[in-house]
């Protein structure tokens, strides 16, 4: 069947019935949320266990179950590999791994897939695991990719039942309160795991810094935690930046950033109380900086900036250019320090910022957001998951949630990456539908979604270089011979969920070239 962005998707994917994407805000839920089994801890409950293996045993983890992790250590994470190694040693097979994201450091997952320890993955697959699946590595069912808010929703809705949530905690107490912003190796908020901790059959907090009760702030709470394990190492915070956290120096990218900031300033939303979200990519960081300077010179004070927290965002708070930071994950150590010291730097979780099935999302309060893309098409659809050669290499992150939520969403993307044109007739994969994208900024000009005639008028008045996506595409294609394109077979290797649980696209296996 064909969904609302014109993508051909099957009625069943693996063992699940597909609900096709109907539109960004088309569906609504009825009924009650899922829940975990009741448990009453005795007054003298001792939750400490001596090892990860002991916790695996205590939770009764066995073949075919689902385990979950957060990604707050990003490429410095040590826990996922440790737990899976332990499962392999204990002879457990057929696990479904349900992380908030995977990174290159999780390359050993490949061998666990090959040996059958892991047979399903539902979570963003950055790098080697994605490449392995794309290259023919088999899972029992296609992978499922969800946005931050979409993942939270899927747990609350009971789409995914977690058997054991393993939560890496930079600091915890023996009673199961845990935080990510203190300890020997702070990684920023671990609140991505808050929903896992509340809905999993068993919740295990694993820390390398066990401290006397009470540890705070309590992103993970005692009432949710079954067991606590102390280990020597859970992750290396030096790698939380994943190499992305460098203000771009490329003149092309700086131009894109400057045009983006100029567009925001010209949009009409740039007044006192202005709010925005900036990511951690080189261009986004530069936009954040340029916007901050523009706010300073215009004397504008924003209501809030939304994280991923970065040094740049913290600087805006310290310069009193924004009143608060709402921060779901930290991208550098400065942001983590600020979470400890600045009361206006507020810890939030993905349910707060992005959950479709909720009574309110922080993203809906955003005036502007600037997000990256691997590809954009003439319908303004955005792909962040696959490369032009069809390889599945990236997760969704908060892309869908922020794009859908913000009053104005700007996509920053170079028209050419090397020889690869990034504005296409059709994106390889639709991650985020064009209906929630307002502006596409390239080094060759700014394209405004025809839905937003109001913005177009303002941009023209401000003298910004407006072009159509067709014009930008043609100009880029003038400089390179046409590319070959992957030919996709029928086999589906991953399903891309929209944030409401419908399927917006599937990633199929590449079978040839045309």
């Amino acid at each position, binding site marked *: 069947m064909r969904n609302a962005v014109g993508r051909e998707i099957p009625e069943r994917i693996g063992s699940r019935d597909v609900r096709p994407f109907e539109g960004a805000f088309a569906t609504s839920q009825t009924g009650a949320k899922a829940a975990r089994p009741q448990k009453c801890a005795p007054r003298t409950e001792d939750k400490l266990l001596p090892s990860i293996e002991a916790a695996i045993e205590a939770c009764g983890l066995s073949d075919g179950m689902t385990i979950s992790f957060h990604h707050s250590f990003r490429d410095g994470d040590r826990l996922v590999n440790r737990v899976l190694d332990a499962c392999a040693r204990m002879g457990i097979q057929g696990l479904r791994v349900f992380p908030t994201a995977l990174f290159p450091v999780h390359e050993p997952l490949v061998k666990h897939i090959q040996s059958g320890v892991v047979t399903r993955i539902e979570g963003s697959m950055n790098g080697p695991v994605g490449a392995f699946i794309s290259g023919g590595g088999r899972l029992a069912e296609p992978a499922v990719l969800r946005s931050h808010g979409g993942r939270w929703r899927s747990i609350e809705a009971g789409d995914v039942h977690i058997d054991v949530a393993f939560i890496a905690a930079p600091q915890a107490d023996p009673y199961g309160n845990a935080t990510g912003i203190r300890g020997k190796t702070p990684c920023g908020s671990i609140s991505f795991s808050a929903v896992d901790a509340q809905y999993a059959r068993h919740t295990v907090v694993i820390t390398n810094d066990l401290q006397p009760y009470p540890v705070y702030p309590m992103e993970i709470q005692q009432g949710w935690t079954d067991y606590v394990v102390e280990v020597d190492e859970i992750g290396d915070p030096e790698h939380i930046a994943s190499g992305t956290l460098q203000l771009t120096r490329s*003149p*092309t990218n*700086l*131009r894109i950033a*400057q045009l983006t900031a100029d567009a925001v300033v010209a949009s009409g939303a740039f007044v006192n109380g202005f709010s925005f979200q900036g990511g951690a990519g080189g261009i986004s960081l530069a936009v954040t900086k340029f916007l901050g300077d523009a706010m300073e010179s215009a004397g504008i004070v924003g209501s809030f900036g939304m994280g991923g927290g970065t040094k740049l965002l913290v600087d805006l708070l310290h310069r009193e250019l924004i009143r608060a930071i709402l921060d779901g994950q930290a991208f550098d150590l400065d942001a983590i320090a600020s979470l400890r010291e600045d009361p206006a730097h507020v810890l939030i979780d993905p349910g707060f910022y992005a959950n479709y099935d909720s009574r309110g999302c922080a993203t809906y309060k955003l005036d502007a957001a600037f997000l990256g893309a691997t590809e954009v098409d003439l319908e303004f659809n955005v792909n962040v998951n696959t490369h*032009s*050669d069809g390889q599945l290499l990236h997760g969704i992150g908060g892309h869908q949630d922020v794009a859908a939520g913000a009053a104005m969403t700007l996509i920053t993307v170079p028209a*050419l*990456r*090397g*020889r*690869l044109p990034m504005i296409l007739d059709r994106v390889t994969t639709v991650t985020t539908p064009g209906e929630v994208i307002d502006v596409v900024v390239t*080094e*060759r000009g700014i394209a405004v979604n025809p839905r937003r005639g109001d913005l177009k008028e303002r941009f023209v008045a401000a003298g910004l270089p407006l072009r159509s996506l067709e014009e930008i595409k043609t100009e880029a294609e003038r*400089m*390179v*011979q*046409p*590319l*070959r*394109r*992957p030919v996709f077979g029928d086999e589906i290797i991953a399903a891309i969920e929209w944030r409401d649980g419908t399927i917006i696209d599937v990633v199929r296996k590449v079978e040839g*070239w045309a």
Partner: protein
Amino acid sequence: MDVRIGSEAKGDCIVEAHSDVRSNIEVETKNAELLRDGIRAVAQETLSSLGVGDVAIRVIDFGALDHVIAARIEAAVRAVTPGRGLPLHPTVDRKASERDRPRRSRLYAPGNQPRLLVGIELHGADCVLLDLEDSVPLSDKAAARILVKHLLATIRFPKEAWVRVNPLGAGGREDVTEVLVGRPHGICLPKTESAQDVLDLCAELSRIEAERGIEEGSTWIMPILETARGVLHSEQIAASSDRVVMLAFGAEDYTRDIGARRTTEGLLFARSQIVAGAKAARIQASDTVYANVDDEPGLIEEAQRAQDLGFDGKGAINPRQIEPIHRTFSPTKEELEQARTIVEAAREAEKRGLGAVAVDGRMVDRPVLERAIQQIKYAGRLAGGEDRDA
């Protein structure tokens, strides 16, 4: 003989070539399935346009655009088989530009580095200066002039594209012969010391224009004065040819030449001399570059001083410097309003038969009025936008 042209930098490629019984093309690239055929097509086209049937090449791609690949192949083939010519038909139909168009910024870009040339036309510079001189090492000169030629022939410049060639006796003749195929708006002549230097270049340009069917005299010249002799001769240099539309100042070489420090005082005489020389010939003058890219306030201050002295523009070594330079060398809203008021008042006075008129208590005499008219015209041209290549 085996040759190897290009580099592993992003946006570049390496082309290896050697003579063989027949042509053969090998392609290596990261996204092989996507890109190999396209790169091979560029290679084939380039070889056949060069009329080559006996050179084997290997293209190792690092994300180069078509014109970069073509340029690297041409350079490699010509190194293997000297004497092969310049058969390139530009895809861009570039018109000659107006003599006195606004030239607030001249942005230098190294002519040997594709990585830094990608999108160089997009930053709004009034003049992009593709450099073959100081930023290009000797061993790279031949390949760079071919690269610049292909770039000029392919890229549509919204404003002006210039080439800074080497001094004529040091490769400049070869530079001019090569790059004029790509039809730049003008040639920057570094270390110009006399009117004769300009006339020598004029002779070259006229010869090549005639050969290539380009309208004679349509290629502009911007002499760069960066020695004591050059500065002292600025009046004659400015007046030496109708091709000369602007004098540019190069402070780094100048201070070295005269043994001065690069201070405001150390440069004051040269700056004023150059402005006077240029203005005597009714052409523009452009100040030297500001080397500290991260110091925007410093740049603006220096640009403001240059404007006070009579300069029309300033050099830039990074695209980030263009916007502040343009801001400085464009009339402000207040200045424009003031100019309009002056013109309006003068018109009113004339209508009523009054000889003189005062605006805000200041006497408006003829120079003031002329300056106001000039400012309004200039602002109109800046607002007129881009005359994009077809």
